[in-house]
């Protein structure tokens, strides 16, 4: 279903934030809206956003490609994005990620067999004092998980299994 039909109120509200002659500014919030259901932006949504904003589909695709939080391919229901940048790494983030991989039986970039979690290593999440830290990007938006251990993470994954749409 089209974005406008599915989320008429949100689309209108997003467009109202920017001057009408600069409605192109709405591309980023519209992409988040399009990504909400499936966890990635499909081609039809890119076409529709291009149409709404009167820009080309290529321009929309270039935004999707440039920013790391937009995805054009399906992954697990939740992307688990672990920060491994310097401040976190000084507090054991690399070892944490490695242990997590071992426990889940997947490598970084892979998805668990049940399709629930895709494990990713990402750059700084601004949680350097609470390492190890990761965010989950899923149907309920982006959430932070700080001062994590492997055990706490496995518990979280169990809880995510129970979440209904």
């Amino acid at each position: 279903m089209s974005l406008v039909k599915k989320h008429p109120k949100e689309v209108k509200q997003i467009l109202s934030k920017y001057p009408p002659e600069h409605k192109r500014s709405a591309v980023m919030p519209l992409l988040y809206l399009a990504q909400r259901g499936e966890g990635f932006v499909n081609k039809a949504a890119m076409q529709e956003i291009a149409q709404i904003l009167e820009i080309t589909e290529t321009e929309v695709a270039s935004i999707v490609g440039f920013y790391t939080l937009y995805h054009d391919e399906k992954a697990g229901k939740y992307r688990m994005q672990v920060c491994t940048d310097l401040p976190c790494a000084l507090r054991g983030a690399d070892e944490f990620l490695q242990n997590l991989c071992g426990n889940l039986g997947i490598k970084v970039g892979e998805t668990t067999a049940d399709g629930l979690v895709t494990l990713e290593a990402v750059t700084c999440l601004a949680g350097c004092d609470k390492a190890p830290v990761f965010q989950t990007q899923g149907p309920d938006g982006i959430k932070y998980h700080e001062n994590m251990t492997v055990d706490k993470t496995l518990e979280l994954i169990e809880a995510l299994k129970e979440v209904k749409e």
Partner: protein
Amino acid sequence: MSHILLRHRDIPDLHKMAVYKKNGGFVAFKNAVTKMKPNEVTDVVKNSGLRGRGGAGFPTGMKWSFIDNKGWPHYVVANADESEPGTFKDREIMENNPLQFLEGLAISSYAVGAAVAYIYLRGESWQVAALLDEKIAEMEEAGYLGENLFGNDYSLKIHTHLGAGAYICGEETALLESLEGRRGQPRVRPPFPPSVGLYGKPTIINNVETFTNVPMIMANGADWYKRMGTADSTGVKIFSLSGRVRKPGNYELPFGTTFRQLIYEHGGGILDGRPVKAIMPAGASSSLIVVDDKVLDTPMDYASVRTLGSELGSASVIVIDDTVSVAWIINKTVHFFKHESCGKCTPCREGTYWMQNITKRIRSGEGTEDDVDLLLNVAKQMQGKCLCALGEFSTMAVVTGIERFPQDFKKAVKV
């Protein structure tokens, strides 16, 4: 001393409208709009000596006075794209003391004649944006945002805008490109945003922490603010302390506090009681400082940190102990900048790529002495040739790491 920015640590529930108002909230904004001319507000901020807290330390009042009054409308943009490894202060402010930040943004908008302000947040701050949207709605309801504020002819709207995971959008012209719906790639400057900014109109961009200072300065006066800190760096700063310390976290302290006080008195000292080997005072963008007693007793202000061959930047102090190899550190920082390079200019796009390859080789024990020379050569060739500061920043830890910690590279390479 009670906090000025992290006031929520002293006052419970400060994020609630009733509590914030009870503690003097929005008096400064009302006073400004009803009793002061916009340029009088700018003058108070100018006299306070407040400098931008995003990293560059540019005098805030002076920036506001550069707004071009020939072009209209004017815009104000809050840079809430906090993404520097080691920096996590703006998030604490917005999560816990959001109304003070928003009041500061409102006062600043009045001072430069902007009727619309945007808050550009990093995409990861999705929950923070939802909270700010709630607070903005509460302000509209209470009559602090909207048309004809306080019965005056001044009107103001504030909107949040989420980025989507790009460090470069903290660079103010890349931020504007992103806000305009394009890839976040920096513009050639000049012209600077106070003349040609958002949608080509005069625009003032400041960091979240900078705005959060403003209500307190307006309420208590420039002289009150100047009494804190040093002559060159007035007031207080939030120091984000991370790395190998016992108590990492945000510490709001006057400028001029020494590294020793921050690390040992506030941060509880080093893990396992090890000695400090190096400090990166401005996050991953820092030059590495070799630590000795003189360094530890250096006051943290813009001028003093410069005498150590580094910069205070956004005051994201990453502490490194003697268990850590500098060859490993620069591989970490270079990996970050390679990932975040926007690809617009060649020296940064290619330089960070090659630096990543070489630092990886050295870190994994496969590098040679020639690799270290080559790495230094690539880094130095990038310096002064990149379109924006990102490329320059990517070389700082590399060059100072190799030059100031040569023994770490001797150990790391094959002979």
